[in-house]
C-alpha cells in the first residue's frame, strides 16, 4: 500500500470512495440470484418449463418459445387441447387477476409449428447408435421415442393397433382433439429420422418382451391401460353392461350407442372418460345423464385431493350442456328386473383419513335414495392388459422403483398410464422423457439423470406491486346448441392474443431483466452487464460494496433475488 501524503488544502479526488470496500459491513446476509421453479413448471407432469417459453414469447420469438417447449413436450398441439393443465391451477397469477391461459397459448404454439413447418430441434441419430424398443405408440411411447432421438438414440415403436396415437385416438373425442390436429402433430413426430414405427405388432402375439430385450439396448414399456377395471355392485352385474371406455371406442368407430342410451343414464366414475361419455350420450339423445362421483365439484372449500379429476373446462362445459352431477356419492345397489337394470340406489359418501393416513370413503347410513334408470355405465378406471407382461406386472400395473421408470428387470422401463398412479397424457409424456434420459445415460454413458431439487417460488415470494393488471384472454366456445360430435368446442387464440397473454407471465423465480435491483441499490452494488452474466441474468452483485440491506431482494418482482446467510 502506498502512503498518501496529505497536505493542508488537499482535496479528495473524485470517486476515491471506491477504495473503501463497504462490503465488509455485511454481517448476516447477502443477496444471490436464485433460479427457482415457477409453480407451473413444478406442477407440470410433462416437465415443461412454461415460464421459460413464456419468456421467449415476451421477447417476441414464438419459434424459440416452441423450441423451448418441445425440449420437454413434443406434442403441444395435443396437450394444449387435452391436458387438465395443473399448471394453470398452480399459476401464481391466480391470486392476482386470474391464472394465465397456458393451455391456450401452448395449443397456439403447437398449431403454429405445424402450420409453419418449424423443424423439431433434434439431430439425426447416428445409424449405429444404440436402438431402443418402445412398446406402445400412445403419448408416452411417442414421447419416449422423441426424447430417445433427441438424446442420440434410435427408437423402434411397437404398436398393436393399426395406427399410432393410443388413447389419443381411441378415447378422446374429436370435439376435444380434432383428428386432423392429431394426425398432423403425430405425423411430424413420426417422420423424424431415427424413429421406426411397427404397427399391428402386439406384445405376446407378434413380439415378446424377451425377444425385444435380446435385440435392443433397452425396452420402454408404454402399453397404456386397455382393460376396464372389474365393476359390480355387491356382486351384481347387469347382463347388458357396457363400460365407458368401450362405449367411447365403439361410438368413435361406428357412431352408434346401445338403445338403452336414449333413456335415463347413470355414469359411475369421476375421470375424463366418464366426462366424455356423459357428454356424448347427452348429445346423442339420452333423456337424462347423471354422473355419480365420490369426488367433489370445485368450490371455495374443496380440498385439492377431494376434487374431481377432470379437465376443469370440460366439467364447466358438461354442466352447461345439462349433465347432472351427484358428488360425494356411490352406487350402493342395482335394482334389477330380471337381468336388466331398472334403477339404482345411491348413497352419500364422505372422505375421511383412515388409520394408515390414506383417505377412505365412508357411507352415510340413511342417505340412500333410488333413481330410475335405463342404463348404468361404469367408468371407474382401466388396467393393463396382461398379455405378454407375465411376471413383470405387479397386480394390475407396473410399479417402477423411481421417477425414471426403472423396473427390476435390467434395461426395462415402464411409463405412462400402465404405471397405475399416472392418468394424464402429460404424465405419460413426462414419463417418456425421464425414461429416455435414463436409457440414454445407460446406453451412451454419462451421468444418471438427477431430480431437479430447486425450490418452488410461490406467490408469497413475489413483489406483485410491479405487475400491471391484465385480464386473462377469453377464447370463444361453440354454443351448447351447436355442439356435435366432430367440431372442436374450444376455440383458438390469434397471434396477437397469444403474445398479449404471454405478457401476463410473472416470470416467477426467474429474472425479468426489469432493472429494479440496478435502479434501487443505494450503494451502486448491482452492476448491469450487456452480455448475460454467468447465471443467465443481466446483473451481477459487486459484493465489495454490497452492505446487505436486502432492498434488491425486497423489490425484486419475481423472487429471483434471495438473501442468504453470509458464510465465512
Amino acid at each position, binding site marked *: 500500500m502506498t502512503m498518501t501524503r496529505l497536505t493542508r488544502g488537499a482535496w479528495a479526488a473524485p*470517486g476515491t470512495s471506491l477504495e473503501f470496500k463497504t462490503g465488509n459491513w455485511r454481517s448476516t446476509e447477502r443477496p444471490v440470484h436464485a433460479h427457482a421453479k415457477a409453480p407451473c413448471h413444478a406442477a407440470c407432469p410433462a416437465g415443461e418449463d412454461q415460464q421459460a417459453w413464456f419468456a421467449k414469447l415476451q421477447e417476441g420469438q414464438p419459434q424459440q418459445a416452441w423450441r423451448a417447449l418441445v425440449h420437454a413436450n413434443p406434442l403441444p398441439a395435443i396437450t394444449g387441447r387435452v391436458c387438465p393443465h395443473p399448471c394453470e391451477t398452480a399459476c401464481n397469477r391466480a391470486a392476482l387477476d386470474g391464472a394465465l391461459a397456458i393451455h391456450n397459448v401452448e395449443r397456439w404454439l403447437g398449431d403454429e409449428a405445424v402450420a409453419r413447418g418449424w423443424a423439431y430441434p433434434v439431430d439425426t441419430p447416428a445409424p449405429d447408435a444404440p436402438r431402443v424398443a418402445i412398446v406402445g405408440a400412445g403419448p408416452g411411447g411417442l414421447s419416449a421415442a422423441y426424447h430417445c432421438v433427441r438424446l442420440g438414440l434410435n427408437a423402434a415403436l411397437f404398436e398393436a393397433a393399426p395406427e399410432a396415437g393410443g388413447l389419443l385416438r381411441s378415447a378422446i373425442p374429436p370435439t376435444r382433439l380434432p383428428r386432423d390436429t392429431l394426425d398432423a402433430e403425430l405425423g411430424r413426430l413420426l417422420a423424424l429420422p431415427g424413429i421406426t414405427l411397427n404397427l399391428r405388432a402386439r406384445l405376446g402375439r407378434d413380439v415378446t418382451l424377451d425377444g425385444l430385450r435380446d435385440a435392443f439396448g433397452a425396452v420402454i414399456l408404454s402399453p397404456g391401460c386397455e382393460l376396464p377395471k372389474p365393476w359390480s355392485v355387491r356382486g351384481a352385474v347387469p347382463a347388458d353392461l357396457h363400460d365407458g371406455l368401450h362405449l367411447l371406442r365403439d361410438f368413435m368407430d361406428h357412431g352408434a350407442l346401445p338403445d338403452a342410451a336414449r333413456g335415463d343414464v347413470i355414469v359411475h366414475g369421476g375421470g375424463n372418460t366418464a366426462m366424455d361419455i356423459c357428454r356424448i350420450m347427452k348429445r346423442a339423445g339420452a333423456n337424462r345423464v347423471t354422473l355419480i362421483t365420490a369426488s367433489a365439484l370445485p368450490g371455495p372449500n374443496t380440498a385439492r385431493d377431494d376434487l374431481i379429476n377432470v379437465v376443469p373446462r370440460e366439467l364447466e362445459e358438461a354442466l352447461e350442456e345439462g349433465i347432472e352431477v351427484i358428488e360425494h356419492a356411490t352406487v350402493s345397489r342395482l335394482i334389477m328386473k330380471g337381468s336388466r337394470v331398472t334403477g339404482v340406489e345411491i348413497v352419500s359418501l364422505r372422505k375421511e383419513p383412515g388409520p394408515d393416513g390414506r383417505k377412505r370413503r365412508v357411507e352415510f347410513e340413511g342417505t340412500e335414495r333410488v333413481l330410475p334408470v335405463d342404463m348404468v355405465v361404469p367408468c371407474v378406471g382401466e388396467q393393463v392388459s396382461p398379455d405378454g407382461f407375465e411376471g413383470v406386472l405387479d397386480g394390475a400395473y407396473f410399479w417402477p422403483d423411481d421417477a425414471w421408470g426403472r423396473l427390476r428387470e435390467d434395461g426395462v422401463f415402464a411409463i405412462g398410464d400402465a404405471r397405475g398412479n399416472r392418468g394424464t397424457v402429460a404424465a405419460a409424456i413426462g414419463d417418456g422423457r425421464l425414461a429416455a434420459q435414463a436409457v440414454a445415460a445407460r446406453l451412451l454413458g454419462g451421468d444418471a439423470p438427477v431430480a431437479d431439487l430447486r425450490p418452488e417460488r410461490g406467490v408469497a415470494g413475489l413483489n406483485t406491486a410491479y405487475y400491471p393488471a391484465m385480464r386473462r384472454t377469453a377464447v370463444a366456445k361453440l354454443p351448447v346448441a351447436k355442439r356435435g360430435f366432430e367440431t372442436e368446442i374450444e376455440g383458438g387464440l390469434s397471434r396477437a392474443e397469444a403474445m398479449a397473454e404471454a405478457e401476463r407471465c410473472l416470470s416467477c423465480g426467474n429474472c425479468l431483466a426489469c432493472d429494479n435491483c440496478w435502479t434501487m441499490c443505494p450503494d451502486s452494488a448491482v452492476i448491469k452487464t450487456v452480455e448475460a452474466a454467468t447465471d443467465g441474468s443481466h446483473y451481477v452483485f459487486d459484493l465489495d460494496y454490497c452492505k446487505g440491506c436486502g432492498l434488491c431482494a425486497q423489490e425484486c418482482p419475481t423472487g429471483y433475488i434471495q438473501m442468504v446467510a453470509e458464510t465465512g
Partner: protein
Amino acid sequence: MVQDSTRLNGLRAKHGRPPAGPHEPQAAPSTLRQGQPRFRGLEAGHRACQGCGEALAARIVMENAGPDVMVANATGCLEVFTTPWPQSAWRVPWMHSLFENAAAIASGMEAALKARGRNTKVLAFGGDGGTYDIGFQALSGMLERHHDVLYVCYDNEAYMNTGIQRSSSTPHAASTTTSPAGKERMGKRHLKKDLLSIIAAHHIPYAASASVAYPADLARKVRYAMGIEGPTFLVVHSPCPLGWRHASALTVEVARRAVECGLFPLVELERGALTNIMPIRTPRPVVDYLELQGRFAHLFDETDTRAIEERDHLQALADHNILTYGLAGTGDDPVDTTGIAHVRRGGPLAERT
C-alpha cells in the same frame, strides 16, 4: 456553444459515458463498473447506512442531472457519508457548505460560472434540517434572486445525522429523541411544515415533490428541472431505516406506502400553480404506512386512547392532502401510483409506451 460541447465530450471521456453516436470512438471499459450505462455521479464506497433512502435518491438525481454539473452540499448525512476525507464518492465538482448556507454557496457558484460564460448547472443538496429549518432563509433568497440552480431537499423527516432530533419536517406524532413518545405526548406535537407551498409562493418556474419509491418519476422531474433556466426545487421523500426504525430492506416499501396513503403527496407546481399530481389508484389506510415504522410504534398501543386518536388524526391529514391536491385517481392511469411502478421483461413498462 462549441466550447461547451468540447467540455461535454471531455467529461464524457472522463466518466466513461457511452458515445453520443456511432461515429464517436469510445475506449472499451476496463471493468464492468466503468461500463455501466448510466452516469455514476455518486459512486459506491460511501458510508451511508444499509438501505439508506437518501443515498438512493442522491444517486438517482446525479444519474439524471450529470455529468455537466457542480454541487453545493449542506452539512448533513449526505455530506458526511459521501466525503470522509481523503476520499470522495462524488465524481463531479462538489463543495461542502455549512448547514445554513448551501443555497447561498450555490448562488455564488452559479454567478461565478455565469461570469465565466459557462453553462454548467449548479445543484444544491440539503437534508430537511438544512432546508426546512436552518438553510431556509438562504434558500428563499436564492429563489428570489432567480439563480439558475436546482435545489434538491432529501427529506428524511428529522436531523438524522446528529441523532434523530425533530425538524420542522418531522410528521405529526412521530417519535424522535427530542419529541419522544411517552406520558406527556404522543411524539411530535406539531404538524409537518408545508414547505412546498412556501417555495411555490416564490413563483419560481418549477417546484415538485418526488419519492424514492418511484425512481422513474423522480428521474423525469430531475430532467425536467434541468431543462429550466432559473431556480427549481425538488423535495424527495427518503426513508431513513435508522431514524424511522424500519428494516433496511423496506425503504422503498415504506416510501411507496407514504405516497399511497396520501401523507406524502407527489405534486408539481409551476410559477406557483399546481400543474400536475401523481394520482393514487388505490388509497391505502394510513396505518399501513405507520405500522412498518418504529417511530410510530406508540400509535399501536391499543390500551391508549390517545394512540387511536392520533391515528385518526394522521388519517385525517392524509385525507386532507388527497382532497386538497385532488390525488384520488379516476380509473387506471399508466403514470399513477400503481401504474408507474410496473415493469415488463427488459425494463420499466412506462419506458416502452
